[in-house]
């Protein structure tokens, strides 16, 4: 009797459950599709509006005075690259060292505190890093500068780099460490010659992802790198940056500047995209390394 009832109930609700199953999978698929759609429409929009303004002039000329047609963003492109280079100099050594320390040396309590701090830092709005850099770099030095901009971006990178370094270093099997120690190598040598080489791919990926994230930041640069209409090779002076230039061109009332803002956005996306590809490359190398190839 009971099995009969169960069977009936099973038959009765089968269609309904089958339908629910399909519906939910479909909704999940739609969400995944929306994600693709958003990226795709952003890219199409960028290309439609900006691609006509991308030409040789855009890459080799300085901006024109307000309201005049023509000119380019050569200084902003090199400016962004310079700022990213400095950000790496500031952010990567500290992030890397902190990540290694957390996994290899730190006691549990302290590591917990640092991890919590990292989460808090990741949640701080980027404009706050900008204000921080303004107060501790710009005000005492009495000048807006490349250095302060690189510093602002660099300290934004620290928590991201620390977290990924720690995670990838932890993934190195303990047997490898023990093998090194058993051969008489001191701990530091094990870290430098065994742990780091086996996790370098992942660490590089983390650095690249952090770099890609700060590359598009505008807010931390407003009151540090400041912007510059001309070339600047002096670290103690303001410098142009792509996000800043895009911002000021986009809110201007001039048609030509709007077009250039779109073009600038494309260039910025290409820069970030290349960094992401590089990250992917390192990630793949890591897999091959771990698989013993």
């Amino acid at each position: 009797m009971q099995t009969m009832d169960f069977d009936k109930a099973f038959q009765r609700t089968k269609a309904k459950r089958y339908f629910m199953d399909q519906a939910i999978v479909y909704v999940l698929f739609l969400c995944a599709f929306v994600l693709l759609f958003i990226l795709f429409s952003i890219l199409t929009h960028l290309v439609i509006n900006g691609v006509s303004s991308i030409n040789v002039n855009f890459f080799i000329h300085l901006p024109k005075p307000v309201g005049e047609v023509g000119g380019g963003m050569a200084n902003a492109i090199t400016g962004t690259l310079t700022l990213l280079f400095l950000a790496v100099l500031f952010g990567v050594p500290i992030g890397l060292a902190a990540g290694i320390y957390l996994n290899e040396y730190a006691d549990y309590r302290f590591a917990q505190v640092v991890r919590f701090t990292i989460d808090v830092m990741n949640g701080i709005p980027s404009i706050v890093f900008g204000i921080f850099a303004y107060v501790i770099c710009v005000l005492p030095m009495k000048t807006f500068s490349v250095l302060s901009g690189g510093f602002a971006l660099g300290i934004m990178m620290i928590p991201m780099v620390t977290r990924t370094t720690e995670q990838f270093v932890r993934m190195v099997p303990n047997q490898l460490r023990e093998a090194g120690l058993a051969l008489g190598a001191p701990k530091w040598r094990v870290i430098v010659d065994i742990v780091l080489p086996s996790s370098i791919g992942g660490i590089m990926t983390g650095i690249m992802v952090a770099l890609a994230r700060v590359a598009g930041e505008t807010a931390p640069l407003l009151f540090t790198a400041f912007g510059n209409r001309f070339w600047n090779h002096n670290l103690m002076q303001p410098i142009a940056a792509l996000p800043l230039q895009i911002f000021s061109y986009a809110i201007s009332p001039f048609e030509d500047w709007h077009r250039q803002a779109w073009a600038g956005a494309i260039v910025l996306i290409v820069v970030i995209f290349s960094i992401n590809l590089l990250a992917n490359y390192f990630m793949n190398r890591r897999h091959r390394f771990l698989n013993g190839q």
Partner: protein
Amino acid sequence: MKKLLAFIFAVSLASVAWADATLINGAGATFPYPIYSKWFDEYAKMNPGMTFNYQSIGSGGGIKQITAKTVDFGASDGPMTQDQLNEAPGRIYHIPTVMGAVVVAYNLQGVKTGLKLTGDILADIFLGKITKWNDARIVAENPGVNLPDQSIVVIHRSDGSGTTYIFVDYLSSVSPAWKGKVGKGTSVNWPVGLGGKGNEGVAGLEKQTPGAIGYVELAYAKQNDLTYAHMKNSSGNYIEPKIESVTKAAEGVSIAPDFRVSIVNSSNPEAYPISSFTWLLIYKEMDDHAKGEAIVNFIKWAITDGQKYTEALDYAPLPANVVSMIQEKLKAVKY
């Protein structure tokens, strides 16, 4: 690894050592940004290696940054108050560079540029007392113009702005009600209206909002094809905002020795009433000899030869007596 480190070290050393000749940084008002960037561009062509980098962050920001000495010069359309001057670490000079007009722009279907307004009516619109475009007082000033039965949407600046200062300075001088209730400053407590960021933002809102009224600098109104009002001046004439009528505003006004002078509501019968100087802010005693010399030389050029660029950008050139006063003043600058 060692090679990489050595390379990074070498590159960073090289970039520090490779310094430019002279780069002078300034920040401030958006109102004169078009003419300033034109000047700095032309000046750099004539004096290679002498670059002036100007960021238009607003008059309020300009005053703040020159006070913090993070820039070499500031720029503002509203003169610094005595309190602000006292706060600065050194004596600050106001140097007028050009004059300009703040125009009252509106977005009304079928009404062209040239709607006639008085200061009184304008103040009452911005106080929220007049709310319809076909209000009897506006109609009375504009016989023959078909004014729609439409609500007025007031638009003002949301940021600290010299353009705002000029506008409310004018309203305060013509309307006791405005002076008592709102007063003047680079940002005030607006009784009604929407806010836009920068001259750009207000111009954008104006374009999108039917029935809007707002204030922008003349060049921004022209470049965005906004329609704007003719204002009744203190002699009772309706005046179009343009270079000649702005120039007239400075005539007959006695210029204070520190140049902090308001030319709104001028007594000249041909003057456009919402006109103003705009100022560069520099320290009387410059910290850096090379930069100080460069700034003074630039100003000398801007107030004489540089004035020929004003007209194409809808600014009025400085009156001759002001130019000679500035030249005298610059002799006191130490660098």
